[in-house]
Each structure stands twice: as C-alpha cells, then as structure tokens.
C-alpha cells in the first residue's frame, strides 16, 4: 500500500500563530483529503485536494502531486483548531490510506 507520512507529529502553538503541516506520500494518488479530528473524536473533512491550492477561511491547502506532498496551512490559530489533523490518500483501487496525524494544541 501507499505510505503516508505526516510531520510534525506534535505541535504546540500560541493562539494567533500560524503553522504548516506536511503530508508526504510514496506513490501517485487519485485523491488526497485533509481531515480534522476534534478532541471528542469527531472527524471532519477539511479539503479534497488531489492537486493545486484551495482556501477555506483561515485554512488553506496545497498539493504538489508530481512531488508527492501536500501542505496544510493554518493562519491565526484558535483554540478550537486543537485536535489531530490527518492526511489521507486514495490509490488506484479505491483504497484509502491515512497518515498517523499531527496533534495540534493551541494554547490561549
């Protein structure tokens, strides 16, 4: 299967700071998504982004498919951004592979 590596594994930010999360994957993919899992375990899709750049409020994401990586930018972080951010990729056989996540803690 496709290997998905996320960095950093843990991140502590002061409220208002910016951050960049990275996702590297080992093979070409049909689909790439970023998810946020809040401290209560709920998973929410943030972006579907197999290539290019998208923005949604304070969050934006960029995927460079030819170089097999994606970046998630969080600007002006808030305490509600805390949780775990997962990158997931889909191979040519409709199978999804998740990274181990980046655990973000935003302090007030």
């Amino acid at each position, binding site marked *: 299967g496709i290997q998905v590596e996320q960095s950093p594994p843990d991140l502590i930010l002061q409220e208002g700071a910016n951050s960049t999360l990275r996702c590297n994957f080992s093979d070409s993919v049909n689909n790439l998504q970023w998810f946020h899992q809040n401290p209560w375990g709920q998973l929410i899709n943030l972006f579907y982004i197999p290539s290019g750049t998208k923005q949604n409020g304070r969050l934006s994401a960029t995927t460079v498919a030819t170089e097999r990586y994606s970046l998630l930018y969080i600007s002006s972080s808030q305490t509600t951004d805390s949780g775990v951010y997962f990158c*997931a990729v889909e191979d040519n056989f409709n199978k999804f592979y998740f990274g181990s996540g980046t655990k973000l803690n935003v302090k007030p």
Partner: protein
Amino acid sequence: NAGVTQTPKFRILKIGQSMTLQCTQDMNHNYMYWYRQDPGMGLKLIYYSVGAGITDKGEVPNGYNVSRSTTEDFPLRLELAAPSQTSVYFCASSYSSLAETQYFGPGTRLLVL
C-alpha cells in the same frame, strides 16, 4: 439528513464473542467504508463498498466480514472477538470516491476483554 449513524456507541465483548456494528447513511451515497483507529494512530481501512452487493477488502480485513444488501446500510461483523480488535471503529460514506469527500459517523468504541 442524519448523515452517517453508527450503533452502538460503546460495547464491551468477551474474547470469542461475536457482534455486528451497524452503519447507516441517508445521503444516497454509493461508497461506504469501515475504518479502525487504534490509540494515537491514524485510521486503517478494513472493508469498503462501491455499491449495493459489492464489497472489497481494505488494508486490515482479517477477523471481520461485511455485507451491503442496500445502499443505506453497511454492517461490520466481528466473529470470535480478540483483544487485538479493541479499537474505535468509524464508518464513512461518499457519493463516489473521486472528487467527493468522505463523511464520517461518530464512531463505535469497542473493548475486547
């Protein structure tokens, strides 16, 4: 729409017992997925389905079975539960696997003792 619902929320099983985790979606999605999430880890795909009557194995299918008799329902069956199956199980759905996002249920926390 209720979205993706899962039952039960929490269950304790004894080693060797069997159970079925229920998953239902009311969004008329074709694709449905079962994942498990072990503590501090990402999700691993157990089984998936691209439509009623069609299922296929994911990354970690051993010890599980699924069926997809309707578009709405995608139950996950555990036969002969083992401690290694202690995990949180998430069901998800999407209209298709391409250009569509996955919507997740709230999860089922399973403890096998």
